[in-house]
């Protein structure tokens, strides 16, 4: 049985759902950011799989852009996290509900 693009897309979808579960269910802000990385990575996998199936390298370029955005996002997110921790002494997102009405 040959490995087709659908195999990669199913894997990508499952990884996306796992990451979404982590973003929704976890209370630790660091692990929420890691789950976000997991979701971005699953999107990258879909990009590269489509790129291979269509024989077009545009997907690779998009994947490089996606990695750049992810790196910038992680840098800003972790800086905010350290700042929040030094002010509030916690990164539990159940405690950090200052903006909740």
């Amino acid at each position, binding site marked *: 049985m*040959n*490995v*087709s*693009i*659908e*195999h*990669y897309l*199913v*894997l990508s*979808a*499952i*990884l996306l*759902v*796992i990451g*979404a*579960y*982590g973003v929704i*269910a976890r*209370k*630790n802000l*660091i*692990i929420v950011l*890691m*789950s976000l990385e*997991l979701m971005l*990575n699953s999107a*990258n*996998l879909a990009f*590269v*799989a489509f*790129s*291979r*199936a269509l*024989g077009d*390298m*545009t997907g*690779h*370029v998009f994947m*490089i*852009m996606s*990695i*750049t*955005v*992810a*790196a*910038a*996002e*992680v*840098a*800003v997110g*972790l*800086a*905010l*996290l*350290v*700042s929040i*921790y030094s*002010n509030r002494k*916690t*990164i539990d997102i159940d405690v950090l509900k200052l903006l909740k009405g």
Partner: protein
Amino acid sequence: METVAFYVFAALALAGGLMVVTFENPVSSALSLVLTLFSTAVLFVLLLAHFVAVIQILVYAGAIMILFLFTVMFLNLKPEGLKFESQNLLFKVSMLLAVLLFVGYFASLGFKKGLFLSNISVSEMEGFGTVQGVGTTLFTDYLLPFELTSILILVAIIGVVAIAKKRAN
């Protein structure tokens, strides 16, 4: 051979992803994320995306994960900060249904007809996924987005420095 490699590394990627969202310790989660990212890099090689696979390992599994690990160890969280509150049963069932929805969607629609990889043979894609091929695409058709990426990184650097300075005051 390719099929075996796909299933082995797909299983590793899924196991790593599940460990990221279930482990209580952020260090364990970060190392599980490295497993997932590395397995994905192997899948990129199977998809003939060699340059992107190297970038994945260098930038994602290298630089970004070191940033995560540095932050986790820098904060030095107390054990109660690592606690993982389990959700109620209804929430778990709903997430399970979401997973089944995604898998069922692709299983019913995707496997019937589609773009099979065997349609395009390797030989007719000379230079696919190499540094030269990706670089040519990046610096001709997508030169403007590439330059705009540098502005994004500049904004991120300025933002991080601004946040760090604010904390010092």
